[in-house]
């Protein structure tokens, strides 16, 4: 018993000493963080890359676009990630943060597009919404329906209160949390455009941009808008159970679950791949990933992984990412990006 105990204690001691003295160690696996929207695409590429090359399969963490860029910009060194995925473009503030932390050279890759759909159960009536209606249903403050120039707390509780052509049931919409890129994109693409339909708010954009942003970007907090987690699957399950609930998520989830849910048309446009790629569908966004150039040559396989991602058989019109739900960039754009990526051309910061 004594021997066992001494052995265990010395093991513990050895363990903690090793722990304290562990330096930032060399690593042979690519570390990728970032958007939960890009995650399903990037994992497929990573797995193929691991199978078809001699490099180990990259490790992917789904942290959300904002969380991923924060980790990515924390510095250079193998304890920091090599690549981050984002479902929106890097913000200028994030680029500056990267620069300040010594992450000078960043390679930007636009991988394609994804549409955000507003969907409900197939058992329910198919909806045809306008962005104006979406804004009125989900914003925190809306223009007073009785006229006048003031904003009042959102009074609409039923869809039919907004427009008599809409169905007569309670507004109940499940959407992503603020850490999610889907939320950022939805707010910018749907809420802001809907918001601008009102003259009084549109005027505000020139006069007081902060106020304009806070009005257009604030989602209501009194119940009808339900913040779900990053787990889009959970939203789909809830929609299937409750035909009066609507959900907001990426197009790929609609495609995978087309048996259970259907998408509403927005401003009269159905979310088809063509409409999303051409941005005729109003709630479409581009997907990106960012590569830390300082890690190329330090962590093996980064250029090869990027090459796999940007090859025609991956992200092209008949590539395997299309099967997962990616809407490809137009061909000439793909060619340009692939060429820039091959040269490892870093961003200047002016393009943002």
């Amino acid at each position: 018993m004594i021997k066992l105990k001494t052995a265990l204690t010395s093991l513990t001691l050895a363990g903690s000493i090793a722990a304290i003295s562990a330096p930032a160690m060399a690593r042979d696996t690519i570390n990728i963080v970032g958007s939960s929207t890009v995650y399903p695409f990037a994992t497929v590429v990573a797995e193929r890359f691991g199978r078809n090359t001699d490099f180990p399969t990259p490790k992917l963490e789904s942290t959300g676009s904002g969380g991923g860029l924060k980790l990515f910009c924390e510095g250079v060194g193998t304890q920091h990630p090599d690549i981050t995925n984002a479902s929106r473009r890097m913000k200028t503030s994030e680029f500056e943060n990267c620069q300040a932390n010594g992450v000078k050279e960043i390679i930007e890759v636009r991988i394609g597009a994804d549409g955000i759909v507003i969907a409900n159960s197939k058992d329910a009536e198919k909806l045809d919404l306008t962005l104006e209606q979406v804004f009125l249903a989900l914003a925190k403050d809306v223009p007073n329906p009785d006229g006048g120039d003031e904003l009042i707390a959102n009074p609409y509780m039923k869809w039919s209160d907004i427009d008599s052509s809409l169905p007569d049931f309670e507004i109940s919409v499940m959407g992503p949390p603020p850490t999610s890129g889907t939320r950022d994109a939805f707010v910018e693409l749907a809420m802001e455009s809907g918001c601008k339909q009102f003259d009084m708010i549109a005027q505000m954009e020139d006069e007081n941009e902060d106020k304009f942003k806070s009005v257009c970007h604030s989602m209501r907090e009194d119940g009808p808008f339900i913040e779900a987690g990053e787990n889009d699957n959970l939203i789909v399950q809830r929609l299937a159970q409750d035909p009066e609930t609507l959900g907001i998520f990426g197009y790929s989830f609609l495609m995978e679950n087309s048996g259970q849910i259907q998408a509403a048309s927005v401003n009269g446009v159905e979310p088809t791949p063509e409409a999303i790629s051409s941005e005729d569908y109003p709630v479409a966004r581009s997907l990106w990933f960012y590569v830390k150039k300082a890690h190329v040559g330090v962590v093996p396989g980064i250029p090869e992984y990027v090459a796999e991602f940007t090859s025609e058989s991956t992200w092209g019109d008949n590539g395997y990412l299309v099967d997962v739900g990616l809407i490809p960039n137009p061909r000439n754009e793909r060619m340009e990006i692939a060429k820039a990526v091959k040269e490892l051309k870093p961003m200047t910061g002016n393009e943002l």
Partner: protein
Amino acid sequence: MTDQRSQAEIVRKSLKRRYRKERRFRLYGMLAIFIALASLVTLFADIISKGHTGFVKTTITLDVNLDSELMYLEDPTDADQRSMADFVAPIVAALQEQLPEVDGAGEKRELGRLLGTYAASEISDVLINNPELLDTTQTIEFLAHDRVSVYVKHAGNPRYSIKLSEQQQRWVDELLEKGVIDTSFNDVLFSRGDSREPANAGVLGAIVGSLLTMLVTLAISFPVGIAAAVYLEEFAPENKLTDFIEVNINNLAAVPSIIFGLLGLAVFIGLFGMPRSVPVVGGLVLALMTLPTIIISSRAAIKSVPPSIREAAEGVGASKMQVVLHHVIPLAMPGMLTGSIIGMAQALGETAPLLLIGMVAFIVDVPGGFFDSATVLPVQIYLWASSSEQGFVELASAAIMVLLTFMISMNALAIWLRKRLERRW
């Protein structure tokens, strides 16, 4: 006399009411147990009904002619040639032999879609290992595509939508009849790491990750916890400081696990510069989390050793340390072990603290050591439950069943140890 009689009267009168009360009280107890059991049964029934199909895989077994001309491959050992070779063609040709009516490039393409994503690399693996098999006919078992698998296992189930075209469904029906497509025990589930393709996904990576993490947790929390408990119970002087420590240990036991994750992120990754997503960091964090549980249960076990044993040992001249090491600890060991195993079982099911230290990640390769990226079983369940492919629904439930098996066996071990080693006085 009259007084006594009236008292008896009062008792008799209230007797019925008291009996009723007692019956009600028992009924409440039984109701509580019934509710607990019913929810447990519902949970298990739901998981098993969803998950049992996860233990079945759908395979396509074909006699494939590894024709060098068809594959444009002369030398399978040459990597350049392999990268240009068409490994799908011989499989589609073999499928076509089974379904002679298939004709034309479009139909062939549709036929090829019945195969799993990695069918081609299965052929290339066979040829790399045995180059002499080129231009021979081999019986090879391929994994079917997730869509085929869903159709074979769940046709007619409204929870699943069938994504095969009607033509493909007819082909699958025909191949099923011929026995080319078949279902068997899903050994892939226990022999591979994660994958985005449900047919290729397994829990082995997560099981190994859990094992490595638990080893680190055990190596740290068990000796430290027992040493702390022995010192506090046997040697520590009773003063304000030990009181303060005691209160803190009890408080720590109630701290939400996510806080330990934040601590691990700040200290182990931030301060010590340890890598993200590795079992060592996960194990350290979980060790901190289980320490209070182990200390508290070990102290209770030490307390329950009767004073007569100590006194007898001291009476024959044993030193304090001899008393503790020779008598108290061996007698308290069953209780300590039980507490530790229950603490470990708790740690095994933990995800929240691991989220922050990066163990919630897509990791395909099975970890080979304490510093390899790894994930654990509950995290694997979480990841599969949030994947969009339909095949992962059953896999998530199957993984829950695997996790529950581990939990139940750990708890059973704790009970067995207690029964086996426990001594009553």
